[in-house]
């Protein structure tokens, strides 16, 4: 095992345990953590199995193998960000509905007094 491999494995494990700890302490909802967990697992696989990168590079015809790593990371981040946009949009709707309900309730309350 090379030095970089050991560092990468330790790094991935730290990352994964950090995510799991955050879920355990209820600082992160499971639903939003799944993509992060998947990213961490991909990190771990790639660190353990070095040839994965080379294999993927040859399959996709990417000349510079480490570029595969960047690609995988970038795709994970993009997918997670899109998920966030969806969550924000939904919350936007929920806040709008709540705001309207509050206004309607305030009006009803005022009418009674």
């Amino acid at each position, binding site marked *: 095992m090379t030095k970089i491999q050991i560092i990468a494995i330790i790094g991935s494990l730290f990352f994964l345990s950090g995510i799991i700890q955050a879920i355990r302490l209820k600082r992160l909802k499971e639903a939003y953590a799944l993509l992060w967990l998947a990213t961490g697992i991909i990190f771990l696989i790639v660190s353990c199995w070095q040839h994965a990168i080379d294999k993927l590079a040859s399959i996709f015809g990417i000349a510079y193998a480490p570029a595969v790593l960047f690609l995988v990371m970038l795709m994970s981040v993009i997918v997670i960000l899109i998920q966030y946009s969806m969550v924000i949009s939904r919350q936007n709707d929920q*806040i*709008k509905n709540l*705001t*309207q309900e*509050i*206004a*309607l309730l*305030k*009006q009803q309350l005022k009418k009674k007094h």
Partner: protein
Amino acid sequence: MAEGEVCIIIPCYNEQESIRNVIQDILENTPDGELWTILTVNDCSTDDTVKTIEATQKAVILDLPCNLGIGGAVQAGLKYASRNNFSYAVKFDGDGQHLAKNICKFISELKSGSTDVVIGSRFCIKHDGFKSTFLRQVGIKYFQWLIKLITGKTITDSTSGFRAYNHQALSFMAEHYPAFDYPEPEEIILLNRNNFRIKEIPCEMRKRQGGISCLSSNRAVYYMIKVSFSILMAALRKPENNKGLTHD
């Protein structure tokens, strides 16, 4: 419980200059024997809009705790109208652009049953009551073309906020109103997609009496892109499951 027949929804954002006259205009044009409810929706005004409205003692106030923009404010009003079982709802601007004498025309059109929604159009007839900027005219022509392309119907004034809805349409809109920014053109596609009939009625409009337009020129580009996109997306959506609609 029906509170009254017609609910006139006025979304307000900093309209202290004009709102008193608007309410006065509606009161003066209310036909004898008819019960019109003036419903103002205050979208977090930072001026004395609410005090001004309260002082008139003639209007119901819905006070939104967060600023939602015109769409969210209108939807809040439609929810009120729907829950209190109003037969008709009218959307009316708080800045004095719309003339209350036209409301009767709108309501009698809805009462005749020939349409579900009435839109007040500045362009059905030639007149000089409303002066528009060149850029705005280009935009309006463009939306007319886009809506014609999608719905096959000619709507001359798709950005007009002066609209009236019958009970079915207002109940539907209370639930599905495109409650984000600049909802008017998108609303037409949504209504058409769900088989509501839309009719334009010519009506003159005044220049605004106070306040500022939600459409300043530096937002025009955003407006064009956003609204075009919303229209296309609305056209791609399936009709909502609308059990209330009975005509074919």
